[in-house]
Each structure stands twice: as structure tokens, then as C-alpha cells.
């Protein structure tokens, strides 16, 4: 049996088009909020781990500056991933399984505003046959969208419905960057951008950060009356060669769903990393979510996409609903790479 580990406090910045503050400054604000909420001194945090991307920051070793935000003196035990903060949560969860430490601070942060994400993200792809083409996630999302249409699994109206519902949900999310009540028919009149996708099928370009504090069973119960238990966490990856993938499905999500025993109980809420509207169609099918599951009540990444924090924000959105009592069991999904290449699932549950 894995060690019982719970989320005991969460914090996120609103997603914004541009923050004047630096990334370490955003992380410092979140760290201080988490410590204030739990009443812990910095020295009580045994392990710190962050996800961020030097290519987004435009500076080699930018992640080292971010450590300022967590407080690094006297010297601390910390680690970093060039991945979304949700993967940092995975690593922290694995680390706490060893049983020798109790509390970990997990963060994800990114400022996409200084650079051009569409020029940076091709660097995630194969360096011989894809990256030199500037093959960007928007274009690959367009290929995935067309594959869904051709397979008869979705219509352009379905894509627009995802956008309309998500952006309307964003109206009640104080952290959403893009939010509006817009009808499906109005969306379908917009011109194509990467056909069959229109600009509104894409996420906004965002700056932002997110952080959570997790603790082992006994410590978690001492730190909060409402621990949110991590019942399962798993991440899987599909081939990085698009030609080897069926873009209408997500085999890696299906494997991860088994890994977290997704269907071992009812799922009240699912926060999915839908960066491009067709991804919701793929994820709904792969995760086989029941009709009663509420999907992306926060509006999801279509309302705010602080790259490297977007996945961890999904975890926070589910955790908050469990803490507030509006959900008992939920799943957070994080993704990385073009067309949902990598997927992480985290099942959270009330006490």
C-alpha cells in the first residue's frame, strides 16, 4: 500500500497576459501564502520541487533564480523538472513514499509573455524530422482536430461547444484570463486559423504560477481539518512520432486511468488539460467519464494557460472543490507535448 499523502494547502496566481513581476517574485508570494495558511516556518518544509521551462524564460538556468521564491537560505533540499508542476507533484509524491520526510512544497510557474510560444514549442519535437519545420502545437492540434472530424467522432460545432461552455465557466473563476458568454453560432462564424481550428479553439497566452503543500498522513491531519488525499497518480507517454499515433485516441491516458483506478468510484469533477478544444473530445473518450461528471468547472486552460503551471492548476481546482465540499472524489489531468503526447492523472478524494 502506498503511503497516504494529502494536499494540505493550495495557492495560485490569476492567469494574466503579462505580469510585470518576475517568476521568483510570483513564487515567493505563493510560498508565503502556503506557509501562512498552515502556520509552518520555512524550515518545516522538508523538500521543494518546481516545474518551469528555461526556454520560456529565455535564459539558461532561469530555474535556479526561481529558488529565490521558495527561500533557499539556510540551504534547502530541492529539485526541479523541465515539466509542468503536476509532474513535480508526482515526483514529490514518490519522494514522500520513502517515509523519511513529511512535507513537500510543489510549484509550477511560467511566463510565456516575453517570447513567442509558437516558436518555442517546436523545440519539444524530434530534432531531426520535426523541430526544423517549426512544427508547433497549434498546427498539430489542427491535425488532431481534422482527424476527429474525418473519423466522425466530432463536428466543428462540438469544438465550438467546448469553447462556449468553458469560457462561460470562466466567468465564475476569479483566476480566469479569458472569460465570456459567447454563443456557439457566433463562434462558428469566425475565420479559420489552423483549419479546422479557429483562434478561439486555442488557449490564451498566459503568465502565472501555482503551488501546493503536501504532507504524509499524520502530519496532513495535523496541518488541516480538510486534507485532500491523493488516491492515485500516474503519468504515461505516447510516441513522439505523430505518424505512429492515432490522434483520435489517447492510449497513454487509458493506461494512466487504469493506474489510478479512475473507475474505482464515482468521479464528481474532472479538471482536464484542454489546451485546444478538440482535446476535450479525445479525453472524454479515453477517460470514459460518466455523464454525471462535471468537466472543467474552472473553464480549464481555454480560460488561462500559464504553461508549466496549467496542469498543477487542474490539481488545485479539483482539490479546492473537495475542500469546499462540492465534490467528494475528482480527477485532475495534466498534459505536455503536442496533441496530448504526455498525460498525467491524479485522483483526489475527501477524507
Amino acid at each position, binding site marked *: 500500500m502506498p503511503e497516504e499523502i494529502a494536499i494540505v494547502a493550495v495557492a495560485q496566481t490569476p492567469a494574466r497576459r*503579462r505580469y*510585470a*513581476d*518576475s517568476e*521568483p*517574485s510570483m513564487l*515567493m*508570494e505563493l*510560498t508565503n501564502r502556503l506557509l501562512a495558511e498552515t502556520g509552518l516556518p*520555512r524550515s518545516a518544509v522538508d523538500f521543494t520541487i518546481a516545474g518551469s521551462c528555461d*526556454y520560456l524564460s*529565455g*535564459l*539558461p538556468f*532561469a530555474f535556479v*533564480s526561481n529558488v*529565490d*521564491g521558495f*527561500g533557499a*537560505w539556510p540551504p534547502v533540499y530541492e529539485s526541479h523538472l523541465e515539466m509542468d508542476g503536476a509532474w513535480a507533484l508526482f515526483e514529490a509524491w514518490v519522494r514522500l513514499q520513502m517515509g523519511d520526510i513529511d512535507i513537500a512544497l510543489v510549484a509550477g510557474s511560467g*511566463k510565456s*509573455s*516575453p*517570447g*513567442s510560444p*509558437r*516558436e*518555442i514549442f*517546436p*523545440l519539444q519535437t524530434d*530534432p*531531426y*524530422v*520535426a*523541430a*526544423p*519545420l*517549426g*512544427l*508547433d502545437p497549434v*498546427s*498539430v492540434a*489542427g*491535425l488532431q482536430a*481534422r*482527424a476527429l472530424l*474525418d473519423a466522425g467522432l466530432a463536428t466543428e460545432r462540438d469544438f465550438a461547444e467546448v469553447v462556449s461552455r468553458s469560457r462561460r465557466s470562466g466567468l465564475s473563476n476569479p483566476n480566469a484570463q479569458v472569460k465570456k458568454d459567447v454563443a456557439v453560432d457566433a463562434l462558428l462564424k469566425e*475565420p*479559420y*486559423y*489552423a*483549419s*479546422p*481550428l479557429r483562434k478561439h479553439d486555442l488557449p490564451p497566452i498566459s503568465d502565472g504560477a501555482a503551488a501546493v503543500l503536501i504532507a504524509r498522513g499524520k502530519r496532513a491531519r495535523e496541518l488541516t481539518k480538510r486534507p485532500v488525499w491523493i488516491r492515485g497518480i500516474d503519468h504515461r507517454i505516447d*510516441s513522439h*512520432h*505523430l*505518424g*505512429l499515433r492515432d*490522434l483520435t485516441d489517447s492510449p497513454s491516458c487509458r493506461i494512466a486511468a487504469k493506474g489510478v483506478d479512475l473507475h474505482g468510484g464515482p468521479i464528481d469533477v474532472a479538471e482536464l488539460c484542454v489546451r485546444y478544444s478538440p482535446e476535450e473530445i479525445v479525453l472524454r473518450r479515453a477517460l470514459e467519464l460518466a455523464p454525471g461528471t462535471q468537466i472543467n468547472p474552472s473553464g480549464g486552460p481555454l480560460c488561462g494557460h500559464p504553461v508549466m503551471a496549467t496542469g498543477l492548476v487542474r490539481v488545485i481546482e479539483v482539490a479546492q472543490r473537495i475542500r469546499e465540499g462540492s465534490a467528494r472524489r475528482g480527477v485532475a489531468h495534466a498534459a505536455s507535448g503536442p496533441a496530448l503526447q504526455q498525460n498525467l492523472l491524479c485522483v483526489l478524494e475527501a477524507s
Partner: protein
Amino acid sequence: MSCESSTPRVSDGVHRDRLRRMSSLPPVRYQLEYPYTRTTGPIVGAFLTALRDGKLLGIRCGSRVLCPPLEYDPASGETLAPDFVEVGPGGTILSWTWIAEPSRKHPFAKPFAFALIRPDGADTAICHAVAASGPEALHTGGRVRTQYRAERRGAITDLYFAPEAEAESQYIPPGKGAVEMTEHLISLEFSEPLSPHRERYARALLDGKFIGQRSPASGKVYLPSKGYDPIERVQMSERDDVVVADTGTVVAYTVITPVQYYGQKETEPYIRASVLLDGADQPLGQQDIRTIPLAEFRSGLRVRAVWKSRAERSVVDVDNRWGGTGAVIERWEPTGEPDVSFEKIREHNW
């Protein structure tokens, strides 16, 4: 209206706002470049060599042919023998997207399509660009044909596709030798406004002053400040700004003998020093020393900033990361005061 005064009317909120924006320093622009040179190995190398010579190769994997060729069986991870098959030049579109506004990194500046294309004779698709007259020329199941650039260098960009009806017949003369290396220059551009505290620091440099920030928690003066105290984890504001002296002490230095890497501009050895200004608790790093002979240079040396004339000062190299001192200082010169003892600068000497 014609006789409106040109004097700024500070009571006019809109006007004042415009003035403030006009007076903002320009955004920081910088470029990040990594010139990658990669060995190609026996499989990718053969594929790229063939592209240079106007041929598209697949590789046998059991009963299937994979294009682009992989070094391994994607199902088992087993190494594949270099058993190549020429595929194409025709192919079938499996999916496509019309790129209305190409990025600077795309293969075409004008609108084009990315498509998944299964070349004739292959069982998998290659993702590549299709040059077409418009989206009407494309449909799933449509036929395309390989096309090659006039100038080829053994890279994936030597190739593109066109709808069969729009493709040209080409003669591609084979090149010499095998493609054993590929070069890929990663070049990204960034632009961001100076953060508020860094803008005040830069403005002070233009005025011939150094501004730091005094931590309300520890009293330590950070220069150039990052806008927070990293030790006490306290955010700072304009209230915490303090002016420090333009005299200080060399607390550490190094002599750099330049290696001629990509982007290197230096040719002769030079000194980089950390200078702890009087009144600051954090040394200014990376100070360029050109006029004090190495034999006379030492930690503990007292120095003074010699400012450029106001008209010559520039802060274009002040950014949100390192801060820098911009092109505002002509040089650092010894003050002639006695050296500061090592004991007093020990904390900063490493």
C-alpha cells in the same frame, strides 16, 4: 484648439498618463541562441542523405515500412537493421491543417498546410509541409507528391510536398558523400518591459546614481535589487529604494581568457570583478575592468565609478535578470585609499 499650449497639463489625467508612457524605457529585447550540431547515425543519416539526393526513404520493420525511418521497432524497442526502401514520390493525405498565419520558424512565409502524409509504399505517415494554392486544393485522402528545394543541405527542410495537380517535375542531381552531421540553429527572440524596480534602477544609472533596495526585514541593501529580499522572502517596493555611493571595494575578481565559441566577441584576456559599493550589502557582479593592469589588480582595492557623460549613457543592456550596470560607466579607477582588509570582505570573497 490651434493655440493649445504645448506645456504638459498635469491636471489632465489622460495627458499625464500619456506622458508617463512616453517616458517609459523601451522594453528589454534579447535573443537566445543554441547552435546545435548533431551526429545523424546510420539510420537518420541515410534518410537525410537520400533527401539531399531527392529520394524519400522508409525502413523495414517486420512486415511494415516506417517513414520517416526509425532506429528501433516502436512496438518492442528492438534495433532495426538498415534495410531501407525508397517510398513515394506520391503520397496520400491522412490529415491536414491550413496555416493561415505562418510563424517565422515555418518552412513557408505564405499560408501553407501541415499534413500527415503516407508515402506510397510506406505504412506510416510523415508530418510535413504542403505548398498549395489554397485550402481548396487539399482534402483528406488527397494525393500529394514530394518536391525538393533548389538548395539542399541534408535536412528535413530539403523536402516539402505539393498537391499532385500542382507539383512540378524535378531533376535532383545527387550530392557528394553521406550526411553525418546536421546543424540546427535554435534562435529565439524575447521582449519584456523592465519590471518597476529595475526601471527605477536604470533611470538612476542614467542620472549617475546607484539605487538599491533596503530589506525592511533584515536591513540589508540589495543592488541591483530583484524587487525582493531572497533570504527573508519579503517583497520590496519603491519605499525601500536607497541611493548608495559610487565608490566601493573589489571583493572578488577573475581573469577570463576568451575561448572562441559561437557568439564570442572577446579576443584578449580581461578582468571581471565584483565591486561592493559603499552602503550596499550585495556586490555588483561582472564589472568590466580594462584600464587597471592585472599586476595591480587585487581584492580589497578601493575603486570609484567614472561615469560617462550624460549624453553617452545608455541602459540598453540593463535587463530584469542580471541587472548589469549598462553602458553608463566609462571605467572603474582606484581611489588611492588604503586597501580594505580581507576580514572585512570575507563574506563576499569566494
